[in-house]
């Protein structure tokens, strides 16, 4: 088993100026009637990358994927694969394969025939097909089900067969539309890791559509956050979470507290905001901002400390009342109501067994956070 962290960090072709993109989506627009599903979208995806398209329902993820597969034709723009323009190339001649959301297994064929279907179209010799099918079924741990029909399989087993079928032709790129959407939570979590391992071991390029952000964070090298046919940010999971480029992305990924404020002091190191609620926020920003400009500080719940007494430093601290409290086992979620009426969400890891019992409803508490805990967002 590989160690997730190290290998992942050293794999970053998107930050290498000399790296050539495998898939290049250039200013692609797709309209259905007068509705624009994908709006002047550009994107580069690199070889061996596990790329996730993340967005709310109806934002155009499937449409983009279907344009890659060739089932929809862009109204404008071009899609290049290894530098070759795919415009006008029908689905059956594209070196990409797709795994469908509904799995789309052929109901009148056995599992083995389903997996071998693509190879048969290539006119591969029968013994070679049988060998590859056996290999694929072994890969997805479905060998003993080769003779079954799809309706005799469970949802998870069907998902595996669909994956094996899409992999059988050894495509350059595998497109997956909500591959785990039909599975229950536990099975989904297990399968997420299996998918990433498989992708890594086979050295394939995966483009996955999902509306589950946890799933995208777990599996992907990079995530594209989509909204209304456009890409709002493309970055690694950590960057998308810790350094969102807009209020939209910050709000979409995980939960976040947003403080609006006016810049009172700013230099290359520190920026200070005065919030309308009447407290000062000081944070590391890395760039000098204009005095008097409006900014927003985004602060993730887990980066806020909850204490009974006022922290010594006195900066980045604000008092409030425990309004709501949820014990989740591994951590507790606080909803703290500031005197201004604003509700702040904070989460605290229950490091000791009695940790959660220290606070109760209507306690007066102090919320505090470090100067580098928040992210500065322009409004």
């Amino acid at each position, binding site marked *: 088993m590989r160690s997730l962290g190290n290998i992942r960090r050293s794999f970053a072709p998107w930050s290498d100026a000399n790296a050539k993109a495998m898939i290049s989506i250039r200013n692609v627009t797709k309209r259905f009637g007068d509705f624009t599903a994908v709006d002047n979208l550009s994107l580069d995806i690199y070889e061996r990358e596990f790329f996730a398209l993340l967005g709310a329902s109806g934002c155009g993820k499937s449409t983009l994927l279907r344009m890659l*597969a060739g*089932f929809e034709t862009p109204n404008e723009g071009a899609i290049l694969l290894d530098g070759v323009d795919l415009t006008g190339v*029908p*689905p*059956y001649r594209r070196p990409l*394969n*797709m795994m*469908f*959301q*509904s799995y*789309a297994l*052929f*109901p*009148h064929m056995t599992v083995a025939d389903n997996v071998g*279907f*693509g190879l048969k*179209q*290539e006119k591969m010799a029968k013994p070679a097909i049988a060998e590859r099918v056996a290999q694929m079924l072994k890969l997805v741990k479905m060998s003993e089900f080769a003779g079954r029909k*799809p*309706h*005799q*399989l*469970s*949802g*998870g*087993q*069907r998902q595996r067969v669909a994956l094996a*079928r899409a992999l059988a*032709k050894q495509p350059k790129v595998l497109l997956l539309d909500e591959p785990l959407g039909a599975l229950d939570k536990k099975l989904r979590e297990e399968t997420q890791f299996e998918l990433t391992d498989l992708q890594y071991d086979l050295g394939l390029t995966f483009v996955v559509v999902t509306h589950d952000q946890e799933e995208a964070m777990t599996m992907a090298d990079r995530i594209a956050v989509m909204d209304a046919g456009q890409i709002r940010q493309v970055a690694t999971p950590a960057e998308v979470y810790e350094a969102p480029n807009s209020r939209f992305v910050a709000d979409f990924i995980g939960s976040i507290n947003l403080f609006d404020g006016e810049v009172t002091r700013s230099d290359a190191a520190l920026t200070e905001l005065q919030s309308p609620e009447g407290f000062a926020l000081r944070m590391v920003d890395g760039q000098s901002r204009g005095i008097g400009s409006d900014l927003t500080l985004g602060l993730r719940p887990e980066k806020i400390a909850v204490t009974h007494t006022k922290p010594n430093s006195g900066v980045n601290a604000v008092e409030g009342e425990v309004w709501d409290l949820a014990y989740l086992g591994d951590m507790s979620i606080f909803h703290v109501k500031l005197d201004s009426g604003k509700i702040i969400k904070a989460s605290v890891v229950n490091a000791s067994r009695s940790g959660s019992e220290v606070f109760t409803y209507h306690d007066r508490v102090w919320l505090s956070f470090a100067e580098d805990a928040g992210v500065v967002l322009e409004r």
Partner: protein
Amino acid sequence: MNRHWSGFNIVSVVVGFAFLYIPILLLIIYSFNESRLVTVWAGFSTRWYGEMLRNQALLDAAWVTLRVALVSATAATLLGTLAAVVLVRVTRFRGRLLFSGMVFAPLVMPEVITGLSLLLLFIAMNLDRTIFTVMLAHTTFSMCFVAVVVQSRLVTFDRSLEEAAQDLGCTPLKAFLTVTLPVIAPAVIAGWMLAFTLSLDDLVIASFTSGSGATTLPMRIYSQVRLGVTPEINAVCTVLIALVTTAVIIASVINKRSMVQRERAEQLARAG
């Protein structure tokens, strides 16, 4: 729903079925009558079935009918399936409503009108009326029945199956033939059976469109009956009834079984 058999329900069922089937039952019984007189029972015999097999005109007509039914059912299935595919797949094209209306109009069109209009067409085209024109006519009127049966199946067919086939290297035509067709085959077969039986017992349209040497069985029966009903005709009709009933039963069993299978698969999919 009320599952009990009330007195009223029993009476209506009995009366209804009696109304429908007593004439047919009578016909079948009298086909085994010994006597030449149709209305006088003179003991059981299969004599008229023997007579029937020796009646060359009747056999010729049967052979014509069989050929017409086979050819027209096959052609109607082909055309009807294509029409159904277009109606289901191409949801937006100029004149779609008109097209679907025109496909289904013959379902309710009086047969006399269909027959007459076809006759006029053949005359206008200077087409000699032969067995070929009967086949054409039967294809025309039975293809819309096939279209209805196939369309109702295609509506629930998952398009992504076909896309998956294309994705794996099939041209659209090959995807249709290797994936769609096998999946909707039960409906197509049921459509064929329906067209076959429709052609088998059609009298009106065949009368309009057939010419010399192309007398179908219903036409022959009808003309013989006008000279007087013989038990021989009863025998022929009994054979026809057996044939049609078998075809209808097979078609509905095929359809029913595939429907049950599909439902079970869908249930499994939801549960799984």
